């Protein structure tokens, strides 16, 4: 008998159907991949399951019993745990306090039995094979540990079904391995997972079955063994999908960006010269120092050694604005925290950076801004009802396009893209990579930092692999493959030599 059966789930927001007659079935002891682009209805379906939203129609059976009028609490006590992408942990509490929240063990007079809670937390962590100290402050744990803690917390609450919403977004490969081995062990113990991810490789590594949603409709469901990643991708995006590389060779110009033994916070001795029109993919494990390098080039972090030469002139800039004057721009990682100004309309989000360069003309001229916005809207195909809509009303992909438009509007010649496709659906990803090609053709120089090697293979002329804050190797386009890059990023060959 199925562990979970959702039948004919329908849900509308403001008259728009976001789920239409969707079914989902999860067996005991399986990892079920829930796939679809942003806005396909995955989150809504999961929020209905976890009791965050109420369904308009349809039935849910969990462990044979119908779930009616589900609330977050009743779903939890039924055995459904939702591990959100933005983790719901209390950073200012300790690990065991998070585990025992609302279920604290007490001694006489309601005094907390800390010893026992710590002991049980330690046992729980040991049984999961997770190395987290029970009394550690959650704020001191890194993201992967927090993720594991969330799962531990769910298990402590006797969850039978754990929903993981894009759990690997901020994890490096070692951490993903750790997470997956834990999932596999729990699966053998009979627990089930619903796994939401945009990363195809991971789906094939961990999932047993899949369900694909598109525009609120159930498209397909079946066993992972019977499909290929291309078929899945096609199912997810419909007709618009093409797997072909967008790469086209270009004539490169003179050297525009040169680093000579450049050092900063988190990286050192980086030497590289980049030509006009070139696309360079940067990759490495999380924490390898690429984000720091980008932020240093962009004037956010200080240069501590070596030299940075832009358009033939050495620079010692100490602010973002001076970097912008040197025709640099950076699309920062983590859009919500670092790029989006949430109280602004998308037009305001668009013009804010250009204004820093034109502050000698102190007035905002709405019509001029609108005209400029429309040009970028058309080239980037930003989909939004009006330029005055709040930026937060757009999907992740469209928000990111607005941010790209913000920087193109500054007439920058060198673009630093730090994880530009984070949290963006497959269709928008393809558009953004197509755009990178176009921009390079138009003479822009582009540095992309990404953890996803296939993305680099799609667009880059060269691939720079970082390891522990240094350049490990620079691969020409012909040598870029998942294997060569991973070997370099994990420093596999060198460690063999040492061993």
């Amino acid at each position: 008998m199925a562990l979970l059966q959702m039948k004919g789930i329908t849900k509308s927001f403001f008259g728009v159907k976001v789920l239409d007659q969707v079914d989902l079935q999860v067996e005991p002891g399986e990892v079920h991949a829930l796939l679809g682009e942003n806005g396909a209805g995955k989150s809504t379906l999961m929020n209905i399951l976890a009791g965050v939203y109420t369904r308009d129609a349809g039935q849910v059976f969990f462990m044979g019993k119908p779930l009616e009028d589900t609330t977050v609490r009743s779903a939890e006590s039924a055995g459904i745990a939702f591990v959100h992408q933005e983790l719901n942990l209390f950073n200012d509490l300790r690990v065991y306090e998070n585990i025992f929240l609302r279920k604290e063990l007490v001694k006489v007079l309601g005094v907390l039995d800390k010893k026992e809670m710590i002991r049980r937390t330690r046992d729980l962590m040991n049984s999961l094979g997770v190395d987290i100290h029970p009394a550690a402050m959650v704020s001191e744990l890194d993201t992967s540990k927090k993720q594991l803690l969330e799962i531990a917390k769910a298990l402590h609450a006797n969850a039978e079904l754990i929903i993981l919403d894009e759990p690997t977004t901020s994890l490096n490969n070692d951490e993903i391995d750790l997470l997956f081995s834990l999932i596999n062990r729990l699966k053998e113990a009979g627990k089930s997972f619903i796994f939401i991810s945009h990363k195809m490789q991971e789906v094939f590594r961990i999932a047993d079955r899949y369900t694909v949603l598109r525009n609120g409709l159930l498209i397909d469901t079946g066993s992972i063994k019977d499909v290929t990643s291309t078929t899945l991708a096609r199912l997810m995006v419909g007709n618009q999908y093409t797997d072909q590389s967008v790469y086209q060779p270009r004539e490169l110009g003179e050297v525009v960006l040169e680093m000579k033994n450049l050092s900063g916070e988190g990286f050192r001795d980086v030497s590289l010269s980049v030509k006009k029109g070139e696309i360079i993919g940067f990759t490495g494990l999380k924490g390898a120092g690429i984000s720091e390098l980008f932020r240093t080039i962009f004037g956010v972090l200080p240069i501590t050694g070596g030299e940075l030469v832009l358009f033939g002139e050495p620079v010692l800039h100490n602010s973002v604005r001076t970097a912008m004057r040197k025709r640099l721009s950076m699309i920062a990682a983590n859009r919500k925290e670092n790029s989006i100004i949430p109280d602004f309309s998308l037009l305001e989000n668009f013009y804010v950076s250009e204004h820093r360069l034109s502050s000698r003309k102190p007035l905002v001229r709405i019509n001029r801004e609108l005209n400029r916005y429309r040009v970028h809207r058309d080239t980037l195909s930003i989909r939004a009802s009006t330029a005055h809509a709040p930026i937060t009303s757009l999907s992740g992909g469209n928000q990111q396009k607005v941010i790209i438009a913000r920087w193109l509007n500054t007439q920058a010649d060198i673009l630093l893209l730090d994880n530009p496709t984070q949290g963006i659906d497959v269709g928008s990803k393809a558009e953004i990579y197509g755009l990178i090609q176009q921009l390079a053709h138009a003479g822009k120089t582009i540095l992309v930092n990404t953890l996803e090697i296939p993305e680099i293979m799609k667009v880059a002329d060269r691939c720079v692999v970082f390891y522990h804050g240094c350049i490990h190797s620079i691969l020409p386009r012909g040598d870029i493959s998942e294997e060569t890059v991973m070997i370099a990023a994990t420093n596999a060959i060198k460690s063999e030599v040492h061993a």
Partner: protein
Amino acid sequence: MSVSKADNGRQKQSITRVLGNYSFILIFFAILAVYLIINAGATTWSGVMNILRHSTVVGIIAFGMGLAIITGGIDLSVGSMLSLIGGFSVVVFNATNSPVLTLLFSLFAGLVLGSINGLLIGRIKMPPFIVTLATMMIFRSIAQYYLRSVERKSIFNMDGTLSSYDAFYSFGQSKLFDLIPTVGIILIVVTAIMVFLSTSTKYGRTVYAVGSNERAAMLAGISVEWVRTSVYIITGVLCGLAAFIWLAMNGAVDPATLGRSNEMYAIAAVVIGGISMSGGKGKLLGVLFGAMSYNIIDKIIAAMRFDALINDTIKGAILLVAVLIQIIIPSLRRRLKKAGD
């Protein structure tokens, strides 16, 4: 089909949205109506114009407060700046016999005091609440100390025997075309400038950006340090202007009482005006109405011959009602939208 539905929804939304965004006007007219009814026969043109006149000092400093709050900060020292600048402006006037030099001094002193707040908050990154709490204590204390131990008086009095005293003092009482108080016109002009600054200049938008997401603002090229510093400098200069106007209206400064609780009234005016205390949102136009609303309450209490001590009870209650409206209307809007579906 779906198009017309969407349009309908937008229209319905826009009515409640206007109500939500401009609730300060509703509150203002409600209080004004109460005043006119209570005052019935005794209502005169100059009585109504006095609302404008008596709102000027708090209104002007509340605009600075509004900017500080939009960046996510606060300036508790506004009342004390008024006291310190006012006191020393009297000294300057008595020494120079020149209203123009006095005005220049007031503005410059405001610039200096505001820069102290601004540099500590913007550049050294100390919390605005703490910095301005400290300067609130310091500024007033300096005014009081100087008065007693150097001037050996209990109040800063402008020297009425000076030749330009009459011109200065009557400027504070004057009316344009015998209709509108000059100081009220200054308030309107300041309102116009501040609304323009916040909505139509690139600088104004950076103030909102910093309050909305400081990190994103920094990475978009905005100098967060400078924006933060500048709003406190502007607040200081506005306090200087307000102190000068106070002198023209009253001719004397008691450093112990001038501007007391004004920071609270300014904050209340900002909140009634619909500016979010968490920063990034709200219209400065609301500040004018917030300040005037509070002034009418003074007049209602005077007209009804209530004990003046009940004043803050009513002002506090109005503040709660104003915030309640701001919270209820958006949720009403959501419910309306749902019903529309």
